[in-house]
């Protein structure tokens, strides 16, 4: 490929066109991401008198407490990533090798936790895995125990487990996308040569799916690195604290962050490194996918019915995954169908749903969330797609670093973003903070990297001969994009839209900083309900949220195509 690789300019008439196209997104990003981000992070780069200095960072990196925090953050991220990959591989195998009905349904379901606001995730976890949760109560009843059997929460293990369970669907998604294209022929050939079992996997399969694994691992690592609510609540307290949690705490103490900014800066740099690694791995992975084709695969049911150890293993695996991923969500939903009647009793009832849909603040929150979700899609989708397109077609040196920078919002906590808006725009004549577009812009900034992720993978997978064929047939740059590349990434666009929507309706941290009474969203409402003893109400709103996310991801199922 080397000799025939194309620099961006050769692919377009003149250099002006790509620059013009990028101007819009670049301007938007500058105004609503880099500038606010800078206003916060600059706190970590100035000393007391306001002059630029590395003193704060220096002090931070010398402080044993913060060093411990940084070390722990990286350590738990590494372990969580390993666990996620291990858990994800069997699932990726199943998804890649077998057909079963409702495959996309399952994928839609397992993606929901990823976009849910942290409070709902934690609520569900506590209600299911907690000492008085469904699981323990079940076990206690079954085995007649006095004390809870599985005291898994409020510990290091809880953090790892929660991370693994909420991130392993990403591993499944990314790895299976590559794995499904690896023709079983290679394995059959190896088998005929005497390789089998683990050796077969290690020597033949693994090297082929490695780019996918690395790509997924890099992404999961970043998510675990920046994990906030899970560590905060399920870790049990100050003993297990990560970068993001500390930033959160410091932000609560004072909005003028010095150490907090320095910490966020450290986190951003680490994320940037791994984003870069992710982009490189993804390029290799997409290149591999480019070369391979899809093929027929057998039905899963037939495999599971075998009374073989293999069938049993996978059956157990599926059961376990189903239980652990779905259970917390199901618990939240189940709990919402109640009303606290007299004498602390609980009765089954649709009371809260009646309240939500009969108007008032709750309905307004629902409608607001839908509005913001739609607006976020409208902004994030074109922007993300455009950036992904240019990114996938450019090959100048440093383009990968630039791409990593563009994806940076993944590596920045939304708390910092919200604070950034506060700080950057507090002195502006037009009140950005407290306006509906501030929320939309914040959501867009948070969501567009995911759009990029989904669409750029598809752009890259495209065989280069396709655009060349189109060009030889007379398609100019715009026609190329419109008639060939856009239709081909259509499914990715829809996936990207679903993600953008999901992320927007589930966003809480930045929204909490930027909202006002007229613009309450579902997550903020949930937060408030919890703050006033209304857990049933919180679960009901949480269920509505889950329903929206589920529907959004189900649309991918309807449209079909690769997820």
């Amino acid at each position, binding site marked *: 490929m080397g000799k025939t690789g194309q620099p961006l300019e050769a692919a377009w008439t003149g250099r002006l066109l790509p620059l013009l196209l990028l101007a819009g997104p670049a301007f938007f990003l500058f105004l609503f991401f880099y500038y606010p981000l800078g206003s916060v992070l600059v706190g970590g780069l100035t000393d007391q008198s306001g002059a630029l200095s590395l003193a704060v960072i220096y002090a931070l990196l010398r402080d044993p*407490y913060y060093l*411990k925090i940084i070390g722990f953050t990286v350590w738990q991220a590494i372990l969580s990533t390993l666990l996620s990959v291990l858990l994800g591989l069997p699932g990726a195998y199943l998804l890649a090798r077998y057909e079963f009905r409702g495959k996309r349904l399952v994928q839609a379901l397992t993606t929901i936790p990823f976009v849910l606001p942290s409070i709902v995730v934690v609520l569900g976890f*506590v*209600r299911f895995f*907690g*000492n*008085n*949760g469904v699981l323990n109560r079940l076990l206690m009843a079954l085995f007649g125990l006095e004390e809870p059997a599985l*005291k898994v*929460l*409020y510990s290091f293990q809880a953090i790892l487990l929660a991370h693994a369970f909420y991130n392993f669907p990403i591993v499944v998604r990314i790895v299976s996308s590559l794995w499904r294209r690896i023709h079983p022929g290679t394995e059959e050939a190896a088998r005929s040569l005497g390789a089998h079992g683990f050796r077969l996997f290690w020597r033949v399969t693994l090297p082929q799916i490695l780019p996918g694994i690395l790509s997924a691992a890099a992404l999961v690592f970043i998510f675990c690195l920046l994990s906030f609510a899970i560590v*905060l*609540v399920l870790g*049990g*307290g*100050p*003993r297990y*604290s990560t970068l993001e949690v500390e930033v*959160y*705490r410091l932000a*609560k*103490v*004072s*909005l*003028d962050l010095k150490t907090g900014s320095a910490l966020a800066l450290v986190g951003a740099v680490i994320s940037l490194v791994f984003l870069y690694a992710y982009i490189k791995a993804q390029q290799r992975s997409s290149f591999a996918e480019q070369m391979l084709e899809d093929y027929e695969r057998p039905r899963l049911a037939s495999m599971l019915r075998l009374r073989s150890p293999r069938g049993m293993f996978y059956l157990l695996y599926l059961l376990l995954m189903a239980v652990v991923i779905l259970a917390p969500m199901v618990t939240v939903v189940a709990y919402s169908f109640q009303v*606290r009647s*007299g*004498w*602390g009793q609980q009765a089954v009832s649709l009371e809260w749903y009646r309240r939500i849909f009969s108007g*008032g*603040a709750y309905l307004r929150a629902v409608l607001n969330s839908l509005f913001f979700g739609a*607006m976020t899609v*409208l*902004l994030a*989708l*074109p922007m993300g797609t455009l950036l992904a397109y240019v990114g996938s077609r450019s090959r100048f040196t440093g383009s990968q670093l630039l791409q990593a920078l563009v994806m940076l919002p993944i590596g920045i906590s939304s708390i910092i973003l919200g604070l950034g808006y*506060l*700080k950057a725009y*507090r*002195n502006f004549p*037009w*009140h950005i903070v*407290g*306006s509906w*577009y501030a929320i939309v812009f914040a959501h867009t900034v948070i969501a567009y990297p995911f759009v990029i992720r989904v669409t750029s993978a598809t752009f890259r997978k495209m065989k280069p001969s396709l655009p060349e064929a189109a060009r030889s047939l007379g398609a100019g740059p715009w026609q190329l994009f419109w008639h060939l590349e*856009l*239709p081909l990434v*259509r499914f990715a666009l829809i996936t990207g839209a679903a993600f953008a929507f999901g992320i927007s309706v589930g966003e809480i941290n930045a929204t*909490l*900083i930027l909202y*006002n*009474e007229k613009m309450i969203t579902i997550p903020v409402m949930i*937060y*408030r309900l*919890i*703050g*006033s*003893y*209304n*857990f049933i109400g919180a679960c009901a709103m949480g269920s509505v949220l889950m329903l929206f996310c589920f529907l959004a991801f189900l649309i991918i199922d309807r449209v079909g195509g690769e997820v």
Partner: protein
Amino acid sequence: MNKTQIHYVEVASMLLLLLFATGAAIAAPAVEEEAELVIYAYDSFVAEWGPAPKVIPKFEEKYGVKVKVTSVGDAGQVLNRAILEKDNPQADIVLGIDNNMLSRALEEGVLEPYRSPNLKNIPEQLVFDATHSVTPFDYGYFAFVYDSEVLEDPPESLEELADSRFRKKIIVQDPRTSSPGLGFLLWTIAVYGDGYLEYWSRLQPNLLTITDGWDTAYGMFTSGEAPMVLSYTTSPAYHVEYEQTERYRALLFEKGNYLQIEGMGILKGAPHPQTAKMFIDFILSEDFQVEIPLTNWMYPVDPAVVTPESFRYAPKPERSLQLSAEEIRTNQERWINAWVKLVSR
């Protein structure tokens, strides 16, 4: 329509919507009626079931003034926001500064003192700010609330709380991010003095978890994760009032419970200082005070206000503990750092 045509329509409509959205965003100014009084308050104050929906209309009607109440998070964040906007205050009143935060507020110099004539109705010991930069409007006591259906022999003192029979049965909050959390830390210092760290090291095994905020802690408590949680003496009243259950009870300790007094103040450089003063007067009036118990779940500062029936289950301690504002300011950072170091081990 065939596939390609549908494709065109899709893309076209998306682009149109995008144009509309950007156009609307750029063109729409912040269309809002000019408010004549702007208040920053904490979240539960502004919520549907909080005091604001009840008291604000009263004020608006009484004085013919349009009020805008903005929620900016919890009490600590209210103060932070005020400090952030020091040079260009967007609000007139900042609501939620308590006795533990007072010295920080005063030090940052964000408040304008105002002595309301209505202060004469309020007991002296509740007026925690001599400069009158902050005017009190309600108070409460931190207390451990327990589930009587699960716990049969609750502790009667801080010391007993550290008993081994309560292993992993207590939920508390982090003083860095929660005011009950801070209150409890100060409480232990008020009781144990410099020996508080030693106390905490004995208490630690009994803690199921240390949460970042009251909501999470209380949520876990009512979910049954642990039978004891740090909360307020008024918490049981809520359950009596709305759930008709007396199962959750507050504990009064031998040496007393720690006192929290909440107040609000006028911001220096406030856009509408006159209306702000009227509001301060208003909060000490019966109209405002009578709404506090059932919406904010605290005691009104005005002793003349009769608390509802359910408040019988919100016991008032005989002794109330408090540390002085100066003491807090001088030592808070040191206390918290030492505490963090201890519990992080």
